[in-house]
């Protein structure tokens, strides 16, 4: 089992993801955005950061990096693709996931720990009981998820909503629990097939208790377990 973590110019969480995987005892390596060889990797992670400075629109340039056509192929073949923060933004720009991420409501960058409720979903990589509350930091300027009503209804019906912002007890506040104003408190979604998963929170920041928690480990462990099961 080996995670491949893509480095775009301006990525800045790639080392954290590799370290987090290593901390949990998994192998991980870097994939330069100009490379197109994904062989040897069992799961692809698009890490957080500011790919291409996030100029034009977050992720808008990165989706044209040479590696992305291979990532699309990998996803189409059913391989696990995880986009964290900027990686999530890139996945929406690449149309591997629906919707878009707008500037936070309040127009401020937000770095803080968020409460997240695990929803009943098609996501193949998160084997936690629906209703479980995870505490994972968010760190972004553009996490305000949006999509049209039809898409939202379809995602809901397909079980594509994986994580929602919530209160500490798992409830959702009237008027929304999303600190960034995200539609329907959406923090993480997957594609219909459940193998492409994008989330704004940074699980790699909370795998080591020294840096404040271990809830992020579930995401890494979920992938590894599932791949082991499938073989």
């Amino acid at each position, binding site marked *: 089992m080996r995670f491949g973590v893509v480095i775009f110019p301006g990525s800045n969480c790639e080392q954290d993801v590799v370290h987090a995987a290593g901390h949990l005892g998994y192998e991980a390596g870097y994939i330069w955005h100009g490379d197109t060889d994904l062989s040897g990797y069992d799961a692809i992670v698009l890490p957080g950061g*500011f790919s291409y400075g996030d100029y034009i629109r977050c992720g808008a340039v990165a989706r044209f990096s040479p590696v992305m056509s291979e990532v699309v192929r990998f996803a189409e073949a059913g391989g696990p693709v995880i986009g964290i923060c900027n990686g999530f933004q890139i996945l929406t720009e690449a149309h591997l996931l629906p919707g878009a991420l707008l500037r936070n409501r309040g127009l401020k960058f937000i*770095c803080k720990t968020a409460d997240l409720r695990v929803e009943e979903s098609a996501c193949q990589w998160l084997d936690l009981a629906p209703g479980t509350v995870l505490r994972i930091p968010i760190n972004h300027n553009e996490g305000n998820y949006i999509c049209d009503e039809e898409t939202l209804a379809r995602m809901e019906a397909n079980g594509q909503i994986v994580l929602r912002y919530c209160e500490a007890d798992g409830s959702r506040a009237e008027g929304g629990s999303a600190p960034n104003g995200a539609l329907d408190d959406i923090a993480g979604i997957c594609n219909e097939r459940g193998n492409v998963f994008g989330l704004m929170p*940074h699980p790699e920041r909370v795998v080591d208790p020294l*840096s404040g928690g271990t809830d992020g480990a579930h995401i890494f462990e979920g992938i590894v377990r599932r791949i082991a099961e499938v073989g």
Partner: protein
Amino acid sequence: MPTPETLPADLAPKLAVELGLKLDEYEKVVAILGRVPSVTELYMYSLMWSEHCSYKHSRKALKMFPTAGDHVLQGPGENAGVISVGDGWAVAFKMESHNHPSAIEPYQGAATGVGGIIRDIFTMGARPIASLDSLRFGTLDEPRQRYLFEGAVAGIGGYGNCLGVPTVGGEVYFDKAYEGNCLINAMAIGLMREENLTRAVAAGVGNLVLLIGSTTGRDGIGGASTLASQEFDEKAEDKRPSVQVGDPFEEKLLIEACLELLDAKLLVALGDLGAAGLTSSASEMASRGGVGLDIDVTKVPQREEAMKPFEIMVSESQERMLAIVTPEDLAAAQAVCAKWGLRSTVIGEVTGTGRFVVREGDVVVADMPAATLAHDAPVYDPAMERPAYLDEVQSFDPLALPHPTGRDALSATLLEVLASPNICSRKWIWEQYDHQVMLNTVVLPGSDAAVLRIGDTGRGEMTGVGIAVSTDCNGRYCYLDPYVGAQIAFAEAARNVACSGARPAAITDCLNFGNPEKPEVFWTFHESVRGLADACTAFGVPVISGNVSFYNESFGQPIYPTPTVGLVGIVNDLDDRCTMEFKNDGDAVVLLGRTKAELGGSEYLAVMHGMVAGKPPALDLVDERRLHELLANAILTGIIRSAHDCSGGGIAVALAESCVAGGRGATVTTGSDLADAVALFSETQSRVVVTVAPDHYDALKRLAATHGIPCENIGRVGGDRLRIGDAVDVSLADLRDAYEPTLERLVHGG
């Protein structure tokens, strides 16, 4: 002799004065060159000999600082200081001001302040791992101050977040004294293996000068001389074109490319282009190496047309680095730059002449001994005079004022002090900063000091060692007594670090003052430096880097003397780190140190009486050091559950903050016989509130006795109210409401 730019002998001195040189300085340039300087030469000398680049007014005073220590790998004089933190790891750090650009354009001013100090760090071969920012503004009831504050915070976040360098701490004060001249002091810290320490020293005749990164434009021309080395007046807005514009994405690529180049040993030397641009970077590298440089400005990639040689030489366009490479390594070095999408261009070569020659194609436009730019600036001994205001403010006795009495009035007073913009929670600021990236922020912002693990996720090497970092300076104290105030800046930074379980290792400083040519201002500068130097010497802590920022005045009114201290301490074992929040109901609350009647310069005096007066609290460096020894030893025994120092707002605020942070109340006394208001809000130094399990109190008391530190059990943690004797009784919810939302409310004009 540079012919095409030759100036008529009568025009040259006029241009020199316009560029900020004094007439006798101009004469010195003529004497060095043995002729009338060219336009390009005049620009280069005027910038390199500006206060900002040459420290001509401060250089002598700075010699008072102790700079040596066993663990010092690089002291002042390089882009940043470097200390060893054990096991082959070294930490580089420095603090620098970007006050004047920020006062004109807060977002870009603050952003490029962060960018500049971070370049100083990776220039040394270190990966930037954290930054902190010490900020001063006028009061937030003024719309312009809100604009400056909000813009500066956004700029710091916008730049640092994009780089992926966590912003882990800092401080902010609001006071009318900074209304016309805000302060933006940015500190950056980097981590490296000792063997990767790189210096900006050019060497090897025939080696090539490689310019890496952004193109060169007309932005920031004369920033060091027209912005940083002059006071503000009504024309300040016209200086907006002198403010640089930052591109953090380009800088992120520069960090990765430069660290890769240094790891691969492809560079002879590396320097960044900061104030005075190519002129300062190149001349400093040449003069440190005792070599000459020959540069052709037509080779410099330009983003604007028809740039003159002097514009190219002094442009402060951001995100540029200057490297020296051997001809053999050039191709490999350029390949690394290309991989990161960075421009790299050979613009000249190292010569054995010791002269800095600038050409425009075949034509020489400047030719001077390189060392004269970097090191021969005049050194002044400015006149000093004790300011007349001191007697007046110091003779004021705050104890003679009417003070609130009774539980209701004192409880209300505590809430008011807690809600002061200078005391209240800084969460609104640090939630806009990525403070966690790199996974090493072990103690998040909001405690006494930030604690970082020494580890490099990129190399996959993590250690159990940490550093604790704090920036501090109470400008009010420095205004009331610059000698004592500067010592307290040091003591508070060291105490914050001690409360986190670290021992102080070294400091950087950023000395912000008014116009040094005014004897009263210079006296405050000299006293502050003397105070800081004495404090450092008493603690055996060296100053390894720093920055002086003069001319912080507007309309002739100087800011408070503000010698900001950035202190790095070492936590030998991260398991021994300590934080400020109350952790267990039933724990004993213990006051280390003794409260005296010291309300001079206090937050209470400012908030409740609208005054900045009196003598600042006294500081006994021997007591202070003993207290830190006690803390270090007590934390090592594992009995200390929380530690928080008493500073602004006194013991009342310290207790309230530990309650709010821990989500627990406490029932305590002040441990003092003084009148309630005085006991609660006195800002006596060398005091720390700690908690221990009740069984451990006796052990702590014995340990305190061996260190000669007063130690008194003043109560218990628990409940949902803070009760302090008969004086204060406030619910946790009320404390939180006073403490937490204030800053955001004020920013929105509430």
